[in-house]
């Protein structure tokens, strides 16, 4: 439902406005608006000093948030910070000074540690590339120092150039005869590691041979250039072993800093946001030489609490008065409040602009009809169980109140209705349940009773559109002609459906005369009230009802695809392959079977149902309060 609002005015001595703002921020229920200004009541502008303070606080906030980003999000201090209660009130000047000092001291230290860690990680990644070569030729490389007149060459060839090894060996035999050693090993990634040992006297000839063949030695990384790879590798590997320890030391230092300062930084962030909000709210106040005026919207249920808080904190000199207790119009903010079990369905309503104040919040109706239509289309026990499992998984992986948790709740409700209709239609993965699990249709078989399915779908449409027209009468209650038009359209729809029912033989003939009479009278009345153009609205209402036949069409298509998946699976002669094909097709059908009903159920609500009564354009209710990390606006 849409919360009822009162427009209130807070009046008091000008010097009390900071305390009054503080009370409003603590109660967090007033959506501030600019008061009606005249020659004497002027907006309360920020002083030069306050503007400078605002800029300084914004820069400090950027630094605090950068520090919180750089500090680890796990470990000691984090839990404490997240559990910390709200400090209440605004930060004192000494708090701001302390936070500025903390940030100026901590920032270089934390960012320096982060920089060192990044450099160490980069060095580790670079040195790791030499690891495979060392592990392959480790024994030979360690004994290289014992061969004073031997030159070693280290090469890694790509896997696809394996044939080059034989060519290289032939060329070396031609140049050096038997006076060399060539060892090759395949590395885990498929590349080939080569180690060549040749007499130092022949080094120049070998190097020119390698250059002619386009084979390049592994480069020695920076910092080790003065040595050969054979000399550098052991040092590099020692370094590789020591880097994790150095990384750990820096991580421990960051964790120590987190444990020491994160709580204070979180308080700083909260305090800075709150102070900036207060400064941002000040231009919404009006003031004369002696008094201040604050105006805003408060939910009716919160008005007394606000008055009590102001009286308790500021005494009798500041007063709260309700200046409009039956507001109308688009400037009234809109807040949706629904019981916990309905709240997840607000995500469907919130995909559209909020409803205008004084109209209807359709969330409870969406909670009833959206899963019902979804279940009617999917209507399969097997798919419903898979969907329920996914909804359960999503619920476990998401935090309470998050968008994902709402999606999980909606999916769970849809799964329930899919299960119910699956039992009614006797379907589990299409006809698999009927043929192999002994499931039978309780109501009717969708494969056979297409007409019954179509009638049921249109009946859903009839009820839904009629409900929409009834809500339309309510939302247009202040415009009698429009309301009468909606009511007459609803009457014509009922009479028309009854008459049609008699004609096709579903209803007794006795109902025909009253229905036809009502139809004629209502048609004449409708033309009298809304003119000839009312026929367009009337035809659209009948068209909207017929549009619900998509419930049957999509449901039938989903069921037929499941049957095709089973038929294809059983047509394959190899059982394992057949199961694989069937599972694959069922997977595709499941994705389609969830996506398509969601889209079409949404469309039936937004286009057909909401079109009869929904008036978008509500302004979101944003009360002036303390900063909330979940809401995140300053």
């Amino acid at each position, binding site marked *: 439902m849409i919360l009822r609002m009162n427009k209130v005015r807070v009046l008091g001595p000008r010097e009390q406005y900071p305390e009054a703002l503080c009370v409003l921020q603590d109660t967090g229920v007033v959506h501030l608006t600019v008061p009606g200004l005249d020659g004497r009541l002027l907006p309360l502008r920020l002083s030069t000093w306050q503007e400078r303070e605002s800029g300084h606080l914004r820069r400090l906030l950027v630094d605090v948030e950068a520090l919180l980003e750089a500090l680890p999000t796990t470990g000691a201090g984090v839990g404490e910070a997240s559990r910390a209660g709200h400090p209440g009130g605004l930060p004192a000047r000494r708090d701001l000074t302390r936070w500025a000092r903390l940030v100026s001291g901590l920032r270089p230290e934390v960012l320096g540690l982060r920089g060192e860690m990044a450099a160490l990680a980069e060095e580790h990644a670079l040195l790791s590339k030499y690891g495979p070569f060392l592990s392959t030729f480790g024994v030979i490389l360690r004994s290289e120092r014992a061969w004073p007149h031997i030159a070693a060459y280290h090469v890694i060839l790509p896997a696809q150039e394996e044939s080059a090894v034989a060519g290289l060996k032939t060329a070396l035999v031609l140049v050096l005869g038997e006076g060399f050693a060539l060892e090759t090993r395949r590395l885990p990634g498929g590349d080939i590691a080569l180690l060549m040992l040749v007499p130092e006297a022949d080094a120049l000839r070998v190097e020119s041979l390698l250059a002619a063949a386009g084979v390049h030695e592994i480069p020695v990384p920076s910092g080790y250039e003065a040595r050969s790879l054979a000399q550098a590798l052991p040092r590099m590997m020692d370094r590789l072993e020591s880097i994790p320890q150095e990384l750990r030391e820096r991580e421990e230092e960051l964790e120590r800093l987190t444990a020491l300062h994160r709580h204070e930084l979180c308080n700083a962030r909260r305090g800075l946001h709150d102070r900036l909000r207060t400064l941002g709210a000040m231009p919404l106040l009006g003031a004369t030489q002696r008094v201040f005026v604050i105006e805003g919207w408060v939910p009716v249920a919160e008005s007394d609490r606000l008055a009590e808080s102001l009286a308790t904190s500021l005494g009798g000199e500041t007063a709260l008065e309700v200046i409009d207790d039956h507001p109308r119009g688009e400037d009234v903010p809109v807040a949706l409040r629904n019981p916990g079990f309905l709240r997840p369905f607000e995500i469907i309503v919130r*995909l559209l602009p909020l409803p205008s104040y004084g109209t209807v919040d359709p969330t409870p109706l969406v909670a009833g009809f959206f899963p019902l239509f979804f279940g009617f289309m999917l209507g399969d026990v097997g798919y419903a169980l898979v969907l329920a499992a996914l909804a359960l998984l999503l619920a476990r992986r998401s935090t309470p109140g998050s968008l994902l948790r709402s999606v999980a709740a909606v999916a769970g409700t849809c799964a329930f209705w899919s299960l119910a209709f699956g039992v009614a239609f006797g379907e589990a993965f299409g006809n698999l349940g009927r043929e192999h699990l002994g499931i039978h249709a309780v109501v009717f078989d969708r494969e056979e009773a297409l*007409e019954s399915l*179509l009638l049921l779908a249109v009946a859903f449409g009839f009820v839904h559109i009629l409900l929409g027209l009834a809500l339309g009468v309510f939302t247009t209650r202040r415009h009698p002609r429009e309301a009468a038009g909606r009511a007459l359209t609803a009457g014509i729809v009922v009479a028309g459906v009854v008459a049609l029912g008699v004609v096709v033989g579903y209803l007794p003939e006795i109902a025909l005369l009253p229905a036809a009479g009502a139809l004629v009278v209502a048609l004449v009345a409708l033309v009298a009230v809304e003119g000839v153009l009312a026929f367009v609205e009337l035809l659209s209402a009948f068209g909207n009802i017929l549009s619900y036949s998509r419930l049957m069409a999509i449901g039938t298509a989903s069921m037929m695809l499941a049957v095709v998946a089973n038929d294809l699976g059983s047509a394959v002669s190899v059982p394992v392959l057949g199961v694989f094909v069937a599972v694959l097709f069922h997977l595709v059908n499941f994705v389609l079977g969830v996506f398509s009903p969601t889209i079409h159920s949404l469309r039936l609500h937004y286009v057909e149902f909401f079109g009869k009564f929904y008036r978008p354009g509500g302004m979101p209710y944003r009360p002036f309060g303390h900063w909330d990390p979940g809401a995140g606006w300053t």
Partner: protein
Amino acid sequence: MELLAVTLGAALAVGLTALATGWAQSKIGAAGAATIAERPELTSTVIIMLAIPETMLILGFVVAVLILTRVG
């Protein structure tokens, strides 16, 4: 002959409405893609609008079913 007429009627009911839906969706889809590129927050609205022309195909399908079950 009658069977041919019935099946041809059902096929035309689905086929022609499918072509019309496809044509409409191609126009909406192109405009929708451009909209999403500029304003990603309108993604859900675009998806809904893309689903609107499917009414034609769905009604065509219903007519085909009625032709096949009632006449066929």
